[in-house]
């Protein structure tokens, strides 16, 4: 897949997008942490917002990396982002000090370490010599970890390991702790993995080329984030209260509808004019 991708710089500098994605995503995840303090799960939908903001940042990172013609398809970048991100995320969930107040920070650090190792390997041993390779793989790994953490918080209302492997079921009025029907025990994590893995690579894959426009791609990234939030919100009905899951679902639908509407507007702005051409007239008989 040696596709020559034209380097086209957009309006917003990358560091601004990075800051928006990283800070916005962490703030969203920490708002879901307030669930533990307030004893509610109504704030779960902020996990979906956090995942969407992380994907927004990740799509632009992929654009930066793929602009160098790395010789592999764009989707592989999404796969390495989540392959390394899931490991950092699950490792961090075990640090349940103070109800998991440190988990997001440790996830960022652990994912950054894994991404840095992969990036240094690619640049030195595999002789890629791409200037942004290390920073891009670090960023994508963090995006993978934060997206999974946001979606997990959306589904279960929390992001500590205990919350991800246990669930409470009432059995004839008795509260039982079960492991089978939890987020990890039921392998919901695999669904979230691919919901994020597809969403991170699709925006640039769909918008690349000479007509690439930054605002259009970022709008598509938000649309993909909300689109991934919809199935995650549907899954959350099995884990959190009906009211909280309904809020998540409505936010996801409304967010997706708005961003998709805006994306179509931007796509029409950038599309070639549709000419009202008439079919060629047949010459009349006798001439």
């Amino acid at each position, binding site marked *: 897949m*040696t596709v020559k991708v034209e380097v086209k710089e957009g309006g917003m500098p990358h560091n601004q997008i990075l800051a928006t994605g990283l800070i916005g995503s962490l703030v969203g995840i920490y708002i879901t942490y307030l669930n533990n303090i307030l004893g509610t799960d109504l704030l779960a939908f902020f996990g979906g917002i956090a995942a969407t903001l992380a994907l927004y940042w990740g799509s632009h990172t992929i654009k930066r990396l793929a602009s160098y013609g790395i010789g*592999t398809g764009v989707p592989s970048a999404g796969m390495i982002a989540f*392959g390394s*991100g899931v490991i950092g995320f699950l490792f961090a969930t075990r640090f349940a000090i103070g109800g998991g107040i440190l988990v997001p920070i440790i996830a960022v650090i*652990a994912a950054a370490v894994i991404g840095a190792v992969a990036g240094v390997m*690619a640049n030195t041993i595999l002789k890629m010599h791409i200037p942004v390779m290390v920073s891009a793989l670090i960023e994508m790994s963090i995006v993978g970890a934060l997206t999974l953490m946001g979606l997990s918080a959306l589904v279960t209302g929390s992001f500590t390991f205990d919350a991800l492997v246990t669930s409470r079921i009432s059995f004839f009025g008795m509260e039982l702790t079960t492991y089978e029907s939890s987020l990890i025990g*039921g392998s919901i994590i695999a669904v979230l993995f691919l919901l994020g893995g597809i969403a991170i690579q699709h925006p640039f894959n769909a918008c690349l080329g000479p007509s690439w426009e930054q605002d259009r791609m970022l709008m598509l990234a938000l649309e993909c984030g909300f689109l991934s939030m919809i199935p995650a919100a549907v899954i959350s009905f099995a884990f959190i209260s009906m009211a909280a899951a309904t809020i998540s679902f409505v936010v996801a639908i409304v967010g997706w509808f708005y961003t998709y509407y805006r994306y179509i507007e931007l796509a029409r702005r950038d599309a070639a004019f549709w000419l009202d051409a008439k079919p060629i007239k047949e010459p009349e008989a006798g001439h």
Partner: protein
Amino acid sequence: MVVLETLGIMVILIALIGIIIGGVLIGFGVHFVPVGGAPAAMGQAPGIATGVAMLAAGAGLAGLFGGAWAAELGLLVALAAGAVGGGLMMAITQLMVNIIYIFGMGIPVASGKVAKDPITGDTQTEFKSQGTEGHGLPFVSYAGGVIGGMLGGLGGTLIYVMLLDVYLDALPLIYSTNKEAIYLVAVSLAGIFAVGMFLVNAVLAAYNITGTIEGPHDPKFKRFPRDIVASAIATAVTGIFALGLVLV
């Protein structure tokens, strides 16, 4: 720390070595798979018309499912099932690719990198269309794809089995419950970590290949020693995190 005291450091170290071997097998196996990319979709290069990472993931995950299904039957049976699963997936895919090329598009199979097939000795040049790199999957590429799928499935299953054994010993200690209650959590954790490590290794191998490769006879195949070093180091780091999950 109770987990480390009960299991002993040797169990963790042996698991880590197994994980590293698995990662290296995946990275090495990817180099055997004939990847044609976009040119192959137009019949202008030999190989399967997709990217390295996607193809490796497909073969490896098929192998991983086969191996995971047989994980209860012992290590050797699980590894064999993983290898067969990965190899079978590649064999079926490549057969269908060739059928579509030959009977659907009317293109004879020809390699662009060698004059004679290294295995069968069939000549290639007179079947190669002008202006193309070759097309379809010659016998050596087909054999390479099956070997690559088997190595990928073997490596993925090895990572999965190593992690599963550690988790099945460690998680009951953490949650003071029995193995049966926590079995699915251990399976799911080991599975998602095996998938994650698989994808990291497949993409690193894809970066090593940079684009397309015809199979084990391609000059690019000689680059595999670099990838073995990179795979070993990257898998060691991810393996430490995956095992550290139950140790912290």
